[in-house]
């Protein structure tokens, strides 16, 4: 470890924390329809409503909101599937990429429409520019906006009293795209172009190396896809190597920007939540919980990756004039252990899934943390929206447990938490672990599952467990070392992504509907305060016990066994 590494981490933490209030406040105004920017762009927004035949003043019940969301996302999956299947006939395909085979096309379509961005393909060798732009990039915007819309609907559930509606999905989705994701992506894309990321419709460039070998250098409209890949929490790269590729992430400065973009919407949404319910302190509690869990994970990963020597792994990790020290296998020299550890923790805590280093090459303890981040169900910042609603689910469980302990009916933000809300919360929280553990168990015994692994033993099991975790938690990062482009892996991972997204969103919207219909109860002597450290501690405990311990037996077979086997 170095002081420069810790300084870099401290700078990242300071910048993100500084963004919480301005960005959170801006988003609260956008979804209330009161932003100054909105007044300027309102003609465009209204034009889109007129073309689409939407009345923005007409609100929806939770079920209409959910059905609009489901139909919209189904259309996204079908459209992206179709684009890949006919891409050889589409324009902007200078490399003449052929149609993607059906199982891979389905996996990719589900992956990007669910905000997962799992990639069983290499972008530069599979997709033409049109499929990348009109398919991958568009779905990155729309799936990110979908997550934000769900979170806003749930927040309205807490904020409203005796209401039959939770908002209008089309309005929320459009505003999230138009006022949040699009402006940030445009600025970020220009910044990335300045740093050296290509943005062109030109064909790949063929050069001759000094050894007279022919090398083809892939280029394309990378910067525009890169920006939304990070802001939307999607994470699917233009290139197979993702943010480790020098054309996706050329410098340490672009690396810092990319990490900030990953948290840019998710972290400030806690403040948006606080403002919309009329008590910013509630938002700060959620952010504090996220920050504490993030700091613990990051410190562990950085210490494991920067440890000077690991003789049992045959690594010479001593810092010298020739190397930066620590475990450099699978890491880019321009990032080093500090930024790679930070990026890996950010990307797994956030559900983004972009990578600037190969997680398969991280130390077992780091692999354990990275998997644990995802297994906590996207609550440490999470994806845009999904982190907030995931954390609010744990908050409901926390007040429920506290209610049982003190013998009073649980309340959260003035709403009584009753059996219906708890049923839906448990449904949402249990479907992801059931999906991960069930599918990993099946893949671990079927020859089709084992055939994709590159390694046997605990590390092989870690590869398998990581990839189902990544899919069901809609993260999308890969542990590497697994050949997932087979019908078995493509279809089972697509199922995991589909369930991990929609089997959570539907109960969340049901909770929004139930809460919005309730009256508010004033706080009393029996009310558990939810704006202080006591509740923050309870929430951390609940998240770790309910979210983390569910996976403990599986983790023991993978990274924990690998860790102990090495010593």
């Amino acid at each position, binding site marked *: 470890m170095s002081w420069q590494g810790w300084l870099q981490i401290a700078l990242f933490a300071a910048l993100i924390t500084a963004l919480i209030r301005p960005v959170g406040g801006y988003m609260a105004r956008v979804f209330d329809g009161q932003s100054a920017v909105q007044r300027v762009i309102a003609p465009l927004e209204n034009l889109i409503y007129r073309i689409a035949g939407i009345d923005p003043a007409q609100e929806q019940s939770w079920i209409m909101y959910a059905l609009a969301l*489901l139909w919209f996302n189904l259309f996204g999956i079908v459209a992206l599937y179709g684009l890949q299947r006919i891409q050889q006939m589409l324009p902007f395909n200078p490399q003449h990429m052929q149609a993607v085979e059906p199982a891979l096309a389905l996996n990719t379509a589900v992956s990007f429409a669910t905000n997962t961005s799992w990639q069983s393909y290499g972008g530069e060798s599979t997709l033409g520019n049109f499929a990348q732009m009109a398919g991958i990039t568009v779905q990155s915007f729309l799936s990110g906006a979908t997550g934000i819309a769900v979170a806003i609907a749930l927040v309205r559930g807490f904020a409203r009293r005796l209401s039959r509606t939770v908002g209008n999905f089309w309005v929320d989705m459009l505003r999230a795209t138009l006022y949040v994701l699009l402006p940030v992506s445009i600025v970020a894309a220009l910044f990335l172009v300045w740093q050296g990321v290509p943005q062109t419709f030109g064909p790949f460039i063929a050069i001759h190396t000094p050894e007279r070998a022919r090398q083809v250098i892939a280029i394309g409209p990378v910067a525009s896809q890169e920006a939304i890949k990070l802001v939307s929490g999607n994470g699917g790269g233009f290139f197979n190597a993702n943010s480790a590729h020098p054309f996706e992430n050329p410098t340490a400065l672009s690396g810092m920007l990319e990490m900030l973009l990953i948290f840019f919407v998710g972290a400030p949404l806690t403040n948006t939540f606080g403002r919309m319910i009329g008590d910013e302190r509630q938002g700060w509690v959620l952010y504090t919980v996220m920050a504490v869990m993030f700091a613990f994970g990051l410190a562990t990963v950085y210490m494991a990756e920067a440890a000077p020597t690991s003789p049992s792994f045959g690594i010479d990790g001593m810092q010298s004039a020739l190397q930066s020290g620590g475990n450099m296998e699978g890491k880019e020299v321009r990032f080093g252990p500090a930024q790679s550890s930070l990026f890996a923790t950010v990307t797994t805590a956030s559900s983004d899934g972009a990578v600037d280093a190969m997680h398969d090459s991280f130390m077992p303890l780091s692999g354990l943390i990275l998997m644990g981040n995802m297994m906590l169900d996207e609550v440490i910042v999470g994806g845009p929206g999904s982190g907030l609603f995931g954390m609010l689910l744990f908050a409901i469980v926390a007040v429920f447990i506290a209610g049982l302990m003190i013998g009073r*009916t649980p309340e959260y933000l003035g709403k009584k938490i009753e059996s219906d809300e708890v049923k839906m919360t448990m449904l949402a929280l249990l479907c992801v672990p059931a999906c991960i553990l069930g599918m990993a168990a099946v893949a671990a015994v079927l020859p089709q599952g084992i055939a994709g692994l590159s390694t046997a033993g605990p590390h092989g099991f870690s590869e398998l467990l990581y990839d189902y975790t990544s899919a069901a938690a809609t993260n999308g990062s890969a542990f590497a070392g697994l050949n997932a482009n087979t019908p078995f892996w493509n279809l089972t991972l697509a199922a995991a992504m589909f369930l991990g997204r929609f089997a959570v969103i539907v109960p969340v919207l049901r909770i929004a509907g139930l809460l919005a*219909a*309730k*009256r508010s109860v004033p706080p009393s002597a029996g009310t558990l305060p939810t704006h202080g450290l006591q509740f923050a501690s309870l929430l951390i405990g609940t998240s770790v016990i309910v979210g983390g311990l569910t996976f403990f037996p599986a983790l023991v077979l993978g990274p924990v066994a690998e860790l102990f086997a090495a010593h």
Partner: protein
Amino acid sequence: MLALLATAFALVLGYVYLCLSLTGPDKRTTEPTIDGPR
């Protein structure tokens, strides 16, 4: 593949129905609670 997608979506609609049937109609007043009405 499209048939597979249609099946998946039918399952999700069934899941929406499950959520509805598990919870019943929205309650505009709270249920009787452990600590009684306020």
